């Protein structure tokens, strides 16, 4: 109990410092107040034109589609991550050594930083955009199951963090891993459902996606938000898909730990 309390204190201290540090550049986050709605307007007109007079496309009606993109944008602000960039920079410059010597696991430190950074995202990105979407664009953004949605977003938050941390660890082998990170960002953009709902993909690909981390980073929490989950023709109730998402997160944490241990055996503390 004492250990947990100590860890929570550390988490909070690092999160607050990160929050204050990034608050100095709060307009950086506030760019989203402009960019988010612009992208949303584009999506709105694309899909309004694409639906034409059709009632449904791949089981989704127009209002569901608009809600999907609104929720996807908002959840993205809460789960966004760049732990990979930080970690690969520390490894490349040799600065990771200072973290390896500290009495705190770097992954936990990075996670605490993310908590602080996303708190800022909540205040300067999520909340303003939520009001813009609901008041200005009249989009209904009330989750069907609020409890399950919060849980699913928390799991997506963890999934995003651990996946990006694993990506960052590739720098222990390749030193300059920007290429790998960009490949992943591209794939996750497409296959996590940020650009288009996954039900638009061919059935075979949708089945494969069940076994990849991408849907659990964005598509699953967004569909949980809408209260109706379908992928690869499989319609699941919300507790089941959140359970599967939880399992996916646990597997990712395990993989992250294995890679971290292998990385520590490889790390020489010199940089490149």
């Amino acid at each position, binding site marked *: 109990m004492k250990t947990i309390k100590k860890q929570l204190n550390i988490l909070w201290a690092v999160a607050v410092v990160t929050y204050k540090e990034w608050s100095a550049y709060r307009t950086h986050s506030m760019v989203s107040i402009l960019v988010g709605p612009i992208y949303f307007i*584009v999506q709105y007109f694309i899909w309004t034109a694409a639906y034409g007079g059709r009632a449904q496309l791949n089981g989704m009606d127009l209002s569901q589609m608009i809600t999907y993109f609104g929720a996807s944008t908002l959840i993205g602000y809460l789960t966004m991550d760049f732990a990979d960039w930080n970690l690969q920079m520390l490894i490349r410059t040799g600065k990771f050594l200072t973290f390896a010597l500290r009495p705190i696991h770097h992954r936990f430190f990075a996670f605490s930083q993310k908590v602080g950074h996303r708190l800022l995202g909540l205040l300067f990105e999520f909340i303003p955009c939520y009001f813009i979407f609901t008041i200005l664009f009249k989009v209904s953004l009330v989750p069907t199951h609020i409890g399950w949605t919060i849980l699913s977003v928390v799991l997506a938050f963890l999934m995003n963090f651990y996946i990006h941390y694993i990506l960052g660890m590739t720098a222990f082998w390749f030193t300059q891993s920007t290429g790998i990170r*960009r490949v992943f960002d591209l794939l996750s953009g497409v296959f996590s459902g940020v650009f288009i709902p996954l039900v638009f993909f061919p059935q075979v690909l949708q089945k494969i996606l069940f076994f990849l981390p991408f849907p659990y980073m964005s598509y699953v929490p967004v569909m949980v938000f809408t209260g109706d989950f379908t992928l690869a023709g499989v319609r699941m109730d919300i507790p089941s898909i959140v359970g599967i998402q939880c399992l996916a997160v646990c597997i990712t944490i395990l993989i992250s730990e294995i890679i971290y241990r292998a990385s520590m055996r490889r790390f020489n503390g010199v940089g490149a």
Partner: protein
Amino acid sequence: MKKHMKIYKECIKVAFAAASTYRLNFILNCTIMLLGDIIFPLITVLIYGSGAGFQGWTVYEVLLIQSIFTMSTAIADMTFHGVMWVTMDMVRNGNMEMVLILPVDTMFILMARTFSFEGIGLFLGGFIIFIVAVLNVSIPSIILWLQFLTFFIIGIFVMMGIALIMAAISFKWVGNSRIPEIFSSIRSFGKYPQSIFPKAIVFITSIIIPVAMISYYPAAALLGRVNSGMFIMILPCFLFLIFGIYLYRHMVRLYQGVGG
């Protein structure tokens, strides 16, 4: 002019040497750009594949617009987009004096120094989709090709105007690496047929920030959908570029070199 050509040639050589040194990263970045290039066409294909579509536009006509956008972006990435990032970085670090003391135009040297080969993958991807799209629409006449080329080049001028305005903004909005996102979001209006947007938006994308010229008007020219009114749209594009150049030079003059 000869001096400028010589400098540009040297900068291209340096860019090639840099790409050769970090070969794996270069190849990966080219591949990513090539793959990234497929995203927007992929979304279009998936929308049309689901039985939906944009009224009055076939899938190949929409792909034509998006492939032109991709090629234009690739040319911009290779030749002048770097000015935006390097200006942003130098203003933040306060080391722009290193460029200002050089006996050559600041805007030119920054563009030359940031020449990058990484856009090649993007250009090739866009070009392949362009060829596929052209082969699936009615064969354009030579006149239409000439109209297309004119609009395409002017579209690149618009891209340059955008890059310079972004770079100029970074003198005041120090250290905000998300400035390009603002313009990138505005540019996304240019990736689709303008008929899907309301007239007010089309007015903005054609006259105020003429992003429609990047790909929509060139594609419309190739498809024989231009009318004389569209040629008037060339004027705001030139004005936009001139404004970009003026603003950038003005901000360079105001630069105080303190960093941020």
